[in-house]
């Protein structure tokens, strides 16, 4: 039949178009207890200083994730890190939310180089390529977490909040 390959070619084009749209259109926002709320895209992130971490993913193979340390992003939003991370600021937390509604939480010291040696990364690339659909455009990599439940994919929002207890 002639129709079939033609159809699947058309759907491939459609798929490619969607794929392109997804990363071009997507942004993440940094809001909450910040001095300057941010809206970041893949291209605005690419203008910040990039770092790489080499880690094993779920497939038990080593991968090089590339992106911007979460610390740098929060610092540029004016979050109380470094010297300011004391007193009541120690009960602030980072709530990271994905488009599918998945959510995970970090405390500020977990990402601050004055407290920890690991670099929690907001990755946009793996092994030199943009993150795949369903994983990217933005994913958090937490090198020291043995279980990858906080390596949250498809991030949409980063909120800095105070524990109200």
């Amino acid at each position, binding site marked *: 039949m002639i129709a079939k390959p033609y159809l699947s070619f058309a759907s491939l084009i*459609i*798929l490619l178009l*969607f794929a392109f749209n*997804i990363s071009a259109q997507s942004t993440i926002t940094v809001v909450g207890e910040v001095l300057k709320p941010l809206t970041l895209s893949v291209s605005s992130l690419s203008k910040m200083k990039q770092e790489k971490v080499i880690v094993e993913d779920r497939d038990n193979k080593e991968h090089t994730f590339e992106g911007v340390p979460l610390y740098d992003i929060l610092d540029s939003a004016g979050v109380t890190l470094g010297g300011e991370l004391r007193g009541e600021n120690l009960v602030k937390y980072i709530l990271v939310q994905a*488009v599918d509604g*998945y959510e995970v939480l970090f405390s500020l010291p977990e990402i601050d180089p004055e407290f920890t040696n690991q670099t929690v990364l907001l990755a946009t690339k793996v092994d030199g390529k943009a993150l795949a*659909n369903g994983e990217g455009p933005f994913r958090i990599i937490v090198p020291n977490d043995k279980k990858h439940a906080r390596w949250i994919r498809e991030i949409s929002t980063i909120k800095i909040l105070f524990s109200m207890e």
Partner: protein
Amino acid sequence: MKSIWQRKYILSTWAVIAVFIFAFVVQNEPEPYIIEYPAYFGGRFSIPKDNPTTQEGIALGRMLFYENKLSKNNAISCASCHQQKLAFTDGKTFSTGADGLQTKRNAMSLSNLLWVRNFFWDGRAKGLEAQAVFPMIDSHEMNQSLDVTVEKLKETEIYPQAFNKAFGSTEITANKIVKAIAQFERTLISADSKYDQYLSGAYSPTEQELRGMELFMTVPQPQKNIRGANCGHCHGTPKIFKELFHNNGLDSNPTDIGRMEFTGQEIDRGRFRVATLRNIALTAPYMHDGRFKTLEEVLDHYNEHVQPSATLSPFISDVSNEIDGESLALTQDEKKDIIAFLHMLTDSTFINNPKFSNPFKS
């Protein structure tokens, strides 16, 4: 000088009077209702401060839920599409509204709504109070403005009194209607299925139910010979509900774009809210468009007919019981095991609870 006895007498008279006054003043105060749920459900919910749950508020909400006057043709209530015996669904692919036309999507089961934050198949309504407005004014549902509803209820005998009991004044407003319905909906808790009884140690599942439960909750790892269906990734936790939005591969190019219609984001194309699977054996047909008549068809979908697209969840596309497998690759028996587990989620206490039934029929 008054004797000590006289003083005591005066004091106690005052006390009696105070109690009387107090009783009179608080007579109109609705009685708080404590919502009970198993500890394994967790307490991650919030009830709006301006709408505390009360006995009288719930009673009014229940009346309104079963009230045909909320619809333009006086023939449809919430319960027309949300019937208790079907875990508050209607057994139809699409429901017929007060304008005689069909709803765009399948009526959702109403249970454990206390833990839902974004309502509807696409999550477009935040909170139960906001949600309740939609069906009332939607032309394919009740098709009547809240102002008209208020007028109709004012003319009745029972409602001004019921509003008085619930909110301390006979005045009927749209806001109070919505609040009372939300209060009633918060009490619709399903937590007495065989699965709950198993969790609390009161029921021992059959071999087949246990196998199904294990498969449902497990991520398959063919390299390690671990078999699973990964359902729990989206439908897991003891609530058998997680508030997530996914494209579960129904169509490559969906006509109903789901959450994208609400967010405008390409990444949301074909994503729908992960539905609760509580009482799932009672809530056929399945999916947002009621396309599957049976649970067998649902399992065939996940196992054999997942449609690829850019937004298909990787928790479906990248999961298989075969190394580099293209599909889930469950056996026929494993599919039956999972269905046996899904039947454990039927809660007959919930669907027969007299507190949720039609208050106008007793």
